[in-house]
């Protein structure tokens, strides 16, 4: 590390590593799992129809096909559950952070004074559990900004209000 940075490093900055991140609401796990169920339900239905109408004449035993899809299904369920535990967020006085990922971990922070606008979305399944997702957008090529899913509706509104106040004030 260079000298100049060490000089700066002596004065202590707010450290993102030492902040306690908040977990996503447990209800959101249900939403995630329901989504997985729905996807695999469609997949199984498609498989069944294809099997019934005789597309798989070449495959000797269709049982194994079902078995493999089932294994994948279980694996995805397990991965999503572990992944859910890794989804965490924190709102500090001047920025908002989100981290996620098991195999590909990432931590993103967007300072409030760079936020252009904020969006709150409700998915059909999430709505049933009164959950929403909160997205913040920055200017320019902002395909890669921050999105937190599975927030309680009131909480998301509060965060939005908080950030809006900070931006204007």
């Amino acid at each position, binding site marked *: *590390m*260079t*000298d*100049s*940075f060490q000089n*700066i*490093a002596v004065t202590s*900055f*707010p*450290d*993102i*590593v030492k902040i306690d991140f908040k977990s996503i609401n447990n209800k959101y796990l249900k939403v995630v799992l329901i989504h997985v169920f729905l996807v695999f339900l469609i997949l199984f239905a498609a498989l069944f129809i294809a099997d019934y109408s005789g597309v798989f004449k070449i495959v000797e035993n269709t049982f194994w096909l079902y078995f493999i899809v089932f294994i994948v299904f279980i694996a995805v369920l397990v991965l999503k559950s572990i992944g859910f535990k890794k989804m965490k967020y924190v709102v500090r006085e*001047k*920025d908002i952070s989100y981290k996620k990922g*098991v*195999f*590909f*971990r*990432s*931590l*993103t*922070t*967007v*300072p*409030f*004074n*760079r936020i252009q606008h904020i969006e709150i979305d409700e998915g059909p399944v999430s709505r049933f559990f009164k959950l929403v997702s909160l997205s913040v957008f*920055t*200017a*320019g*090529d*902002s*395909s*890669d*900004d*921050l999105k937190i899913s599975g927030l309680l509706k009131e909480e998301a509104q509060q965060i939005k209000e908080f950030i809006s106040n900070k931006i204007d004030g």
Partner: protein
Amino acid sequence: MDNTARFSNFRRQSKKGILVIYLNILYKAFKAFWFLLFLFVQKFSKIPESTLLYIYIGVLALFVFFLIRAFLIFKNFQFKIENKHFILQKGILKKTHTSIPFDRIQNINFKQNIIQQIIAVHEVNIETAGSSKAEISIKALSFEEASALKQVITIFDETTTTTNINAEEKPLLKIGFAALMKVSFTENHLQSLLLLFAVLVGFYQQISDLFDGLGKQELLDNYITKNASSLENNVILIVGFFIILLLIAVLSSTVRVVLRHFNLTVFVKNNALEIYQGLTTKKSVILKKDKVQHITISDNPVKRKLGISFIHFKQAISGKVENKKDKVIKIVGCQLSQVAVIKNLLFPSENLEGINKNFSTSYYKLRLYLRGALVLFILNTLLYAVIQSNQVLLVNILLIPVFILSIEVSFKKRYYLFNKELLLVGQGTIETHKTYLPFFKVQNVKLKQTIFQAKNNVADVIFQTASGKIKIPCIQLEKAQQIYNYTLFKVETSQKSWM
């Protein structure tokens, strides 16, 4: 200011604009329907005379219709300046009313294509950072009017206009024809060849579509395969082919560079850089200092010998990807002293000399090797699948050293260093790129780790700016976190406008 008064009422562009708009419409129509013209010429003898008459009348009617349309577009296109807003009304049936506050205006660019040069008018493009809908193009203004408009918009926040007149006289830098030639010969010829190739492929596809429609696809294919097989049999021809290819590459680079950068001149005015360039299409770009997000200075070994390099300016871009290329502004053929002047202008009193470089960890090298191996594997499989002979694997004797060399070099060139305000990221293989990014321009920071990186305690840091990402790959986690925290601190305490 009398200039402000001049634009305070709604006004139209120069009357010559009708011609520019008309030719523009015709050009677009021609581009869309040129194959109809082709068909027409080809089948000319077979068309009965009575039908021919109808076609002529139809085309004539179309021309008249376009002329009327051009006139209406011209008539309904009105703009004015009011209350530090640029206001535009346009549209024949669907009226659009646009109002842009001055401080949202990113750029005012002048452009002249050949027709505009002949009739002595300038196209004025007003760019904003937001949606591309808000981009305004005034097709024809006299130079005097255009510069008056530009002046009103650019210097609204300047207290004095006198400095403006002084600065006008001497350019910051001027790239002469000889320097431009130097630039052309040291271009990345492979790239220009690929570009040419892409254009040709696109053209070939259009032609072959056409032949397809005529049912003559086989004829074309035969012609090409016949030529290709005779190529394979003749080594001398292949060597000749490569030499010709090289010549074409050099020539196309030269043409490209000269067309685009002819008579490149850069002025410094107030808080903006003004860049003039181009041969057939003259362009002038105004670059406000604050709006520049980061700059990249590039060269390659030959260029370094000659002491010239490129500067890319990156500004905030709108979400539309198609505009991306236009928003990158490039100055070619800068001498070292000129680079220093521009750097000084954008980042005054920021000296990065003498600060140690920080390199990525050896994990990065490992990752490069693994990726290289994967690419090699895929390349081999593909080659084998196409040619189906073991001899083809001999290519690896040539490929592997090239891969190893380029990985070693690019690892060595990957570094970063910074002082309190400015981050410098170096990268490249044959070319060397140095990207300068002031910390406070960052919009969000990201720390990324794969599970393997986590085991090795390294992480990637990604800075997202309004004009794209800058990445520092595979540095130690603690260092990454320090930079992360520091960047956030800088952004959050900054009061300066960042775009």
